[in-house]
């Protein structure tokens, strides 16, 4: 299943946040969205996931999601959004309980996704006992459990320290290499964008418009930190963003 945005515009009251954004998210690819803060990156993701309705334009699913997909459009949140009163396994179970699955099938899915995110030993731990990186791995496990057609990742690593971020980035790459998934990955971190994205969408400052589309041809498996081609892409992205970011930096917040 692909995702397509056609001339999407959005506003909160009189503040226009997105203007005429057209995008395609092809099946099996990771599209990263970068842009200066307040450019509507997260809004774009919520529109794609149906949590908000665009004021103009259309968000389209192209093709049917795979039959086994329980929740085709699935989010991974920056702040993890785990229920503190449920254990790791309970947080994953939450999103399966409303589906008609046998108890055995549910257990099987939970065990599978916890193993894939290396959380099996922590199945009975409560979120407060986990480090930030582990919490986000629970978020990823929860997302995987509903077999999404498209994963919508809203700055999933931004709340983590830089070492944890590096580790989790490797985790995401290896998850993708094992079973390629489709994802929209919103970030302000260009490093992450060039490590994960098949394509990077650069948005302008508010209202967000597509400033540039940068394709990165290096296969995900071969991307290493410090790779020269990736570094060139990163610099190119920063050139594109720099002016936008400094313009945003001079704005009043509630202007």
């Amino acid at each position: 299943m692909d995702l397509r945005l056609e001339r999407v515009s959005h506003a909160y009251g009189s503040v226009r946040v997105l203007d005429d954004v057209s995008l395609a998210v092809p099946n099996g690819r990771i599209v990263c969205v970068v842009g200066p803060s307040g450019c509507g990156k997260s809004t774009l993701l919520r529109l794609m996931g149906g949590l908000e309705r665009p004021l103009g334009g259309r968000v389209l699913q192209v093709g049917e999601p795979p039959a086994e997909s329980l929740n085709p459009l699935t989010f991974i949140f920056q702040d993890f959004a785990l229920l503190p009163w449920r254990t790791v396994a309970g947080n994953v179970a939450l999103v399966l309980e409303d589906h008609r699955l046998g108890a055995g099938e549910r257990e099987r899915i939970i065990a599978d996704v916890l193993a894939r995110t290396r959380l099996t030993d922590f199945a009975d731990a409560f979120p407060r006992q986990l480090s930030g990186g582990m919490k986000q791995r629970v978020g990823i496990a929860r997302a995987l459990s509903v077999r999404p057609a498209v994963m919508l990742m809203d700055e999933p690593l931004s709340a983590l320290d830089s070492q944890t971020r590096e580790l989790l980035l490797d985790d995401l790459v290896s998850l993708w290499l094992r079973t390629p998934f489709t994802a929209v990955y919103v970030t302000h971190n260009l490093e992450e964008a060039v490590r994960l994205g098949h394509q990077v969408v650069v948005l302008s400052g508010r209202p967000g418009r597509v400033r540039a589309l940068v394709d990165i041809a290096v296969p995900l498996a071969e991307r290493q930190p410090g790779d020269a081609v990736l570094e060139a892409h990163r610099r190119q992205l920063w050139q594109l963003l720099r002016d936008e970011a400094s313009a945003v930096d001079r704005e009043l917040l509630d202007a």
Partner: protein
Amino acid sequence: MPDASPDRAAGARPVPFRGGGFKPRPTGYAGPLAFVLLLALLELGARAGVISPLTMPAPSAVLQTLAELWTSGRLLDHLVPSLARLAVGATLGALAGIAVGLAIGLFSLARAGLVPLVAALFPIPKIALLPLFVIWFGIGEGSKYALIAFGTFTPMVVATYGGVDAVDRALIRMGQSFDLAWWSIVTKIILPGALPAILSGLRVASAIAIILLVAAEMLAAEHGVGAYVLEAGSLYDLERLFAGVTLLSLMGVVVNALIGRAERVLLRWRG
């Protein structure tokens, strides 16, 4: 060669400590100790004749009265009806309060319609309405249940919708993004999220319930701790008066301890 104590030589001294404090430490003995000290003081005063038995009975005399009450079997005659009234009235009031609070928290129309109403009901001294409840529900148990239920209802409404309002909206968005059913979001996200506030509301409500229990039993009851206290008071039998007050205070302590235990079990996830 460096000085043996370079600190002193350079005029160095430790940075003065300015932190600490403002953090209650658990001191298990202080609570009982305060009780014991007060009782001992009263007992000594009574024994020494400083405190006349007409103004304040000796704690030992009160204890003796309680013991007689127990051996004569009249303790249960008073305690059982009181506890039954408390249980029935407070349960009815709390359940209704949680339901209405939840409705206010979930539905805009309920909020707009009911919040002003609850604000108007909250400050009414419920005791003043007892005659009204007697007319509506009869002089028997009905009016007592109604008074206690009404008294626990309003604080539970306020606590519950406050708790619902405080539930992290990001968790609700998460539930929606995974296509959870409305009912699942309410029972699995909103209610557990509001539970800490509901339980602390229950603490307030249970104290109010005990106060109203006594008020209800003072008007029309043959048995009950309130009736016992009223009778002792009208006879100026201070020992029995204090025995009854002790029972009421114990009821409060026990109910509070039960809620504390419920909190430890239900809110284990907070650690």
